[in-house]
């Protein structure tokens, strides 16, 4: 087991962090918004945290504690998301998706051109403070939050806004506000995940948090099932594990198989692997069977 963990530990760490990214993408989807923006916020957050750590280390001082960096990540991510939400959430759904992609492109250009702070193309080293346990703990806490969220007033609002925004509005739910909360919370999560990702890679260049990761986090969320928080986490694990598993057998042609697998899963399991509806159907069936047994 220890041998296994030595080999695949880092893969799991990346998978868990991808899980956080996928959850932040999922939050957008939950409010009926296809947004790739959390990666842009993650980039901002990761740079701020990395820069703070760098200044400390270069001055020969001790780095800030991990908790501080996580906090900084969440605040920066949330703030950026909140500010940009006023522009982005005005847009129609198609434009919003495009505009958030544009935002990710913009984040890279900003990082490249603020080279005084970000190191530009050279990048900036990031001291690693996290352990696997930290990541698991964070993912656990976030999962609990999502669990609570789902059955809370806000969770119901999100469900309604996602499915029928007009109806939600006529039932008294402020659709824009719900979306803004979700968007901002996704930014907070994105910022958190960005700091973790930077610490895992231990080095930050503008491409560390870029379009590809944005697409992968959305894909993980949808692959795993974008209707309950378990889905994105499962999706992220699979999305990381499958290529790792295929690599020894397929070498570089693994990409073709990866892509085809993704298409096949989407075609045959359109609601993703984890679908709460399916669970409800099963549990109802079981209940009805039980009642039948009781009756007979």
């Amino acid at each position, binding site marked *: 087991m220890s041998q296994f963990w030595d080999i695949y530990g880092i893969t799991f760490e990346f998978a868990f962090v991808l899980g956080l990214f996928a959850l932040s993408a999922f939050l957008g*989807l939950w409010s009926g918004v*296809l947004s790739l923006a959390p990666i842009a916020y993650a980039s901002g957050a990761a740079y701020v945290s990395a820069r703070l750590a760098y200044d400390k280390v270069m001055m020969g001082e001790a780095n800030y504690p991990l908790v501080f960096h996580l906090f900084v990540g969440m605040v920066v991510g949330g703030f950026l998301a909140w500010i940009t939400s006023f*522009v982005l959430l005005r*847009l129609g759904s198609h434009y919003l*998706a495009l505009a958030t992609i544009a935002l990710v492109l913009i984040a890279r250009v900003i990082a490249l051109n603020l080279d005084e702070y970000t190191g530009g193309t050279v990048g900036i080293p990031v001291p690693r403070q996290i352990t696997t346990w930290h990541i698991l703990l964070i993912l656990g806490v976030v999962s609990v939050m999502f669990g609570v969220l789902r059955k809370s007033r806000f969770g119901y609002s999100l469900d309604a806004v996602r499915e029928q925004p007009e109806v939600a509005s006529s039932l008294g739910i402020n659709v824009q506000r719900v979306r803004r909360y979700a968007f901002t919370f996704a930014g907070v999560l994105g910022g958190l995940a960005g700091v973790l990702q930077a610490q895992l890679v231990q080095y930050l260049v503008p491409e560390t948090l870029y379009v590809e990761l944005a*697409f992968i986090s959305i894909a993980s969320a949808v692959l795993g099932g974008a209707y309950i928080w378990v889905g994105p986490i499962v999706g992220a694990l699979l999305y990381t594990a499958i290529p790792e598993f295929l690599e020894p057998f397929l070498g570089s*042609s693994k990409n073709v198989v990866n*892509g085809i697998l*993704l298409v096949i899963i989407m075609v045959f399991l359109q609601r993703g692997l984890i679908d709460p509806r399916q669970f409800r159907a099963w549990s109802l069936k079981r209940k009805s069977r039980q009642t039948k047994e009781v009756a007979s």
Partner: protein
Amino acid sequence: MGPLLTSQKKRNENLLNLFIQQVLNGLAVGSAYGMFAMSFGLIFATMGILNVAHGTIATFGAIAALTVVENWGFSFFPALLIAILTGAAIGIVTDRLAFQPLRARANTLGYLITSIGVWIVLIALGETALDHQIKTFPPDLLSWPRLVTTNIYLAPGQIWLMIIGPISVVALYLVLTRTPIGTMIRAVGFSDVWSRISGVSSTVVILSTVGISAGLAGIVGYLSSIAFDNVSVPLGEGLLLKGFAAVVVGGFGDVRGAFLGGIIIGVTEVLGAQYVSGDFRDVITFGLLILFLLFRPEGIFGEIKFGAAR
């Protein structure tokens, strides 16, 4: 005084020539971005498919044309036809295999994810086909028209981009507004329900839209790879990223807007590099993008004319 004045005059002339040269360079690359944005936007507006594999389809147009030119000595126009057909064929095949099965419960998200899958596959295949290299067309494929004055030079590929770009906008605009199939495409963009009521066969419409759009991507890939000496997988990825930007600036609901968006991005990019700084070039481009997002979020032409966003 005389010689001084002459040299001053000559210098001004040179500056003007440089400006004209760079505007023309910008128009050529902008035309490529614009055509790509148009084809990308058409499929997005009509069917809600945000097809990230679209850039790679453009690359395949170039790869196929290069193959027939190198192996069978095809000339410019037959190779162009091959690029169009390859683009359209890949578009239609991927649509049938990857997008059609999702259509019953059509949603943008599902399409996006499958298009990511298609993208991954096409990139891997494209890299293998090109053996991970950058290639170019033989120089004798296209030697006309060539614009050369003392200070201005335009490669034949650039000139063809500038010719075919506007032609394709006008053609596509006329097809969409004046022909029965165009009306049907717009109707599908408007609402698939509406098109079902009016008895339009959605398969025909979908296939023509995909064919037109992916065929156009094939043209862009082919012409840009000639104009910019670049048959490679990154060519398509570059077109895709700039295509996103162009579509945000120009709007995807109207082919004219998308094309204009591409032109704006292209010209700004080249002039920005010349007169401001190569480092800030992208800052200018994306600054423009932010401005459009803030003040004109629905693109240049504003109101959505063709496909309504669903």
